[in-house]
């Protein structure tokens, strides 16, 4: 079991700051006036019913989705809109997707080394050594030469986490990392994530895994219809939600 987390002090630097973020797809408003700070070393879990805007919020942070108005800054710098600057920023922000999205034509090892070698210019050998280290960390050292298609979903997702870690990101975005997994594989992924959290990685996590939120989050943010309704420690949110919407959401999720 990883050691329990020491809470992130309020004085820690703000890594990601969202102010007045608005986003709509056509007539459908997905994010309304969202303000959110993620401090360095903090684990923030976004909760909410499907369609509440949590995935979109997560995807806005590395500009996989553009925002209509408002401001997003990372380490005090506004998100670049296009081109090389944006690519450079993305290299510093890891992302783990619901559907793993490993590169199908490359071995597990190559999946992890490709970005360090091609984007960062790290020597191939050095990248491979680091990749093996990371594979050991996620418990897949023996799968280095396998292809993504030969792995189970849980294994693929752990490789995807290793791939994100290989870029030494300042933070990692997790967009429903366990939602596409069979139940018996969810824990192997959550264990890796819990360990990362304990190691002090800054994480913004969209998930339906309440156990993980309770165990690993510093802060839980509850979204409803694109608005942040509640934010607080896991303890206060789960035990004493302040809004009816949150109570309703929790009763539906926790009843089974």
């Amino acid at each position, binding site marked *: 079991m990883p050691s329990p987390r020491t809470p992130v002090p309020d004085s820690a630097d703000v890594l990601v700051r969202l102010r007045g973020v608005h986003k709509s797809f056509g007539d459908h408003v997905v994010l309304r006036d969202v303000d959110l700070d993620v401090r360095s070393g903090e684990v923030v879990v976004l909760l909410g019913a499907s369609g509440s805007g949590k995935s979109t919020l997560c995807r806005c942070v*590395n500009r*996989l989705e553009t925002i209509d108005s408002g401001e997003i800054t990372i380490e005090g710098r506004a998100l670049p809109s296009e*081109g*090389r600057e944006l*690519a*450079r*920023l*993305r*290299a*510093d*922000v*890891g*992302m783990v*997707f619901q*559907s*793993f*999205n*490993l*590169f*199908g*034509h490359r071995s597990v090892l190559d999946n992890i080394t*490709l*970005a360090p070698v*091609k*984007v*960062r210019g790290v020597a191939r050998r050095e990248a491979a050594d680091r990749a093996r280290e990371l594979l050991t960390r996620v418990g897949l050292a023996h799968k280095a030469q396998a*292809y*993504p*298609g*030969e792995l189970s979903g849980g294994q693929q997702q752990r490789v*995807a986490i290793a*791939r*994100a870690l290989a*870029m030494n990101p300042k933070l990692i975005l997790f967009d429903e990392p366990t939602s596409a997994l069979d139940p018996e594989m969810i824990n192997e992924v959550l264990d890796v994530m819990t360990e990362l959290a304990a190691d002090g990685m800054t994480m913004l996590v969209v998930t339906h895994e309440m156990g993980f939120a309770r165990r690993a989050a510093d802060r839980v943010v509850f979204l409803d219809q694109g608005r942040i309704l509640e934010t607080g420690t896991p303890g206060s949110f789960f035990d004493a939600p302040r809004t009816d919407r949150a109570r309703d959401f929790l009763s539906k999720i926790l009843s089974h």
Partner: protein
Amino acid sequence: MSTIFAHGGQLAHGVLLTMLMTVLGFGCALVAGVVLAVFHISPVPPLHRLAVGYVAVFRNIPLLVWLVLFVFGLPEIGLLYPLFGTVTAAMALYWAAFICEAVRSGIRTVPPGQIEAARALGFGFSQLLRHLVLPQAVRSMVQPLGTVFIALTLNTSLAAAVGVRELTGETQFFTITYDIPIPAFAVTTAIYVLITLAGGLLTGRLERKLAFKR
């Protein structure tokens, strides 16, 4: 038959021209087609529009019309090039439009999630193409490209209509000179089939070689 074999050298020359036209035409069309496909999917609007316009113009006008325009039209405006080169260039430009579309359909088989993952890792457009999109797309492009290769091979025969003495041109010559249309075209058919069968075999081999587990 014996007349044909007596003039074997002439026929061989025709075969040579046909094969040269096929290889040169396909090679140039492949390069141009890939460039066009990249323009087509590029985020730069003028390049995208250029590729769309190119495909619309070249794919929708019969090859024979292009050949006539190139061979008899270009000299009209003072551009006189050797016949063989002009015809091969016209073919390459025409088939490039088809190759562009074959390449594009291959690119669309690359799962969008993988492209998103690469963008999230900091890959730029050209790195994305080079390391992720093209290596994966090429697998599903092999068969459509093989089809274009066969079509191009068979359509080199249109060059006879504008005066190139390639395989079909020579065959017409035999037909007219010695009045042996059936034997002449039988031999010619066999030769075309040999070339296209070889192309088909190569395509199958390539496809197996590029296959990977997924």
